[in-house]
C-alpha cells in the first residue's frame, strides 16, 4: 500500500509538472517575439569586408545597466567571432551599442568617432576620426 502511494505520488508530481511546463511553453511560443542575438548575420558579412582579419574592436554603449550592457557586448562578440571585442573606445574600429538615437551624437563627439556602418539591432560600426 505504502509502495503504491509513493509511486502514485511520484507519477502525479511528474505528470502535473510536465503538463504545466508544456502549457507554459505553448503560451510562450504563441506570444513569442523575434529574438536576435547580437548583430544580424547580413550586417556581419558587410562588416567583415571592412574590418581586417585579426583586428580587436572596441565597444561603447549608452546603457546604464552593467548587466544589460554586458549581454549586448557578449551578443556582439558572438556575432563577430573570431574578431575579439574589448570594452572601451581606444581601438581603430569600435562597435557602438545605442538604445537611444540622441546619445549617438554625444558619443561621437565625446570619443571623436565617425559612423562607418549601421549594423542593425541598435549596433553601429564606428571608427576614429
Amino acid at each position: 500500500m505504502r509502495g503504491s502511494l509513493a509511486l502514485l505520488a511520484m507519477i502525479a508530481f511528474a505528470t502535473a509538472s510536465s503538463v504545466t511546463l508544456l502549457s507554459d511553453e505553448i503560451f510562450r511560443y504563441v506570444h513569442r517575439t523575434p529574438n536576435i542575438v547580437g548583430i544580424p548575420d547580413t550586417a556581419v558579412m558587410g562588416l567583415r569586408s571592412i574590418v581586417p582579419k585579426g583586428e580587436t574592436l572596441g565597444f561603447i554603449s549608452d546603457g546604464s545597466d552593467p548587466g544589460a550592457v554586458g549581454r549586448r557586448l557578449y551578443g556582439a562578440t558572438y556575432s563577430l567571432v573570431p574578431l575579439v571585442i574589448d570594452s572601451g573606445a581606444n581601438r581603430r574600429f569600435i562597435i557602438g551599442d545605442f538604445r537611444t538615437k540622441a546619445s549617438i551624437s554625444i558619443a561621437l563627439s565625446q570619443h571623436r568617432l565617425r559612423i562607418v556602418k549601421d549594423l542593425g539591432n541598435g549596433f553601429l560600426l564606428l571608427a576614429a576620426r
Partner: protein
Amino acid sequence: MTLLATLISLFVPIIIGFGFVRTCIPGEKHLCRHDWLRLCLGIGIGFGLCSCALFVWLLTYGGVHAAYIAVEIGLAMIFGVLAAYNATGCGLCKSSTAPETSPAGWNRPLLVVCGLIFLSACLSFALESGIHPEGQGDAWAIWNLRARSLFRGGEQWRNAFSGTLVWSHPDYPLLLPGSVARSWIYTGTETQNVPIGIAALFTLATVGMLAAGLSTLASREKGLLAGIVLLGTASFVKLGVAQYADMPIAFFVLASIVLLCIQDRLPMSGAVLVGISAALAAWTKNEGLLFFAILLITMKWTKRPVSKVLMGAVCILTLIAIFKVSLAPPNYLAKSGSTALLRKLTDPSRYVLVAVGFAYQLIHFGGQRLNPLVPLLAALLLLKHTAKRGARSSAMILSSMCAGVAFVYLITPFDLAWQIAWSLNRLLLQLWPSALFTCLYIVDFPSPRQQHVGAGPRESSAQR
C-alpha cells in the same frame, strides 16, 4: 541538404560511441535489452571522443578542414568492426539479477505514463527551441561562441581563449564547443540545428542512461519510474534545451556512477569506461575535475582498484592538461591570494549565505512549483531501503560534490549572493539524475514477488 548533413553529423558520434562501448562491454551477436544502456552510454562517449579527436586535429593541423570527416568515418569503421568482432555474449544478460524490490504489476501503466511524459517533454523542448534557437544566455555567450571560434577561426582558432574574453570563461574545456564545431564541418554552415540536436541527444541520453541503468540493476519498473520523475522535472528539461554544458556533465556523472554500480558484472574494460566517462566530465566543465578527483578518492576509500579507471582516463586527462597549460587562461579561483582566501574561509556570514542558498534552491527545486524531491523524500521515508552494490559510493560521491561546490562558493572572488543565485540551481541539476538513480536504486518497493524471490544485488561484505 543541410538537414541531411546535420543528421549524419549527429549519427557518426553515436556509431563511434556505441561501437566503443560495445567493444568495452561486449554484447550478443544480435541486439539484447542491455544495448539500450550501451546506446545511451555510447551517445555521450561518442560525442566526447569526437570532441577530443577534433582538439587533437586542431593542435596538429592548426584549423578545421573537411578532411577531418574522414578521421571520424575511420573511427566509426574501426569501432564498428571491433564491436562486431568482440560480440562474444552479453555479460549483463548472463548475470541478470532478480528484481525483488520493484513495484510489480505496474509495468504497463508506467510504460504508458512514461511514453506520454516523454512526448510532452519532447514538445516542450521543440517549442522552447523555436522560441530561443540560439539557446539561453550562457549557450551563446560561452559554448556556441567557442564553437564558432573553432569553426570560423581558421589558423586563429586560439583567439577563442583570449584573455580579453575573460567573461566567457575561456578556461572551460572543449567537449561541448568541440562537438558543435565538428558537426558544423559536416554541414559547412553554422546551422542552429546542430547545438539543438546535441542538446536533445544529451538530454535523451541522460534519461535513457538513468532508465536503462536502473533496469539493469533493479527492474524495468524502477527504470520507467525514474524516467518519469526525471522527464517530469521541468527545470531539467529547461536545462537541456538551454544548450548549456550542464546537461553533458550531468550525463557523465550519472554514467560514471551507473558504471561504478554495475562494475562487478562487467569485464575489466568496464572500469576503463568508468575512467573515460569521469574524464569526459572533466573535459566538459571544471566541476568535472572535482568530480573526477572525488570519484578516485571514493574508490580508494571503498577499496576498489583505481588502476583501470586511471588507464581509461589518462588520454583525456592528458588533453585536458595540454588545454589548461597551453591555451586556457587561469581560472578565476586561482587569482585569489592566500590572505583573501583565509579571510573568506573565516567569515561566518559566507557560511550562512551558502547554507541559505542551498536551502532556498532545494525548496524551489524543479521549477513549476512542483518539487520532485517531495515525493522522492516521501518514498525514502515511507519505504524500506537496503544497501546495494555501489550505492554507498554513489551517495559519498554526490554528498562530496555538494561539499565541494559549497567550498568553491566560500572562496569565490565574485559576489557570493549573485554567484549562488546564478549557478547553484544548475549545479544541483547536474547531480539530480545521479541522486534520483541512487535513491530509486536503494528504495525497496514491497511487491508480491518479494516473498518468492531470493536475495538480489545486495551490498557485498566489503560494503562498497
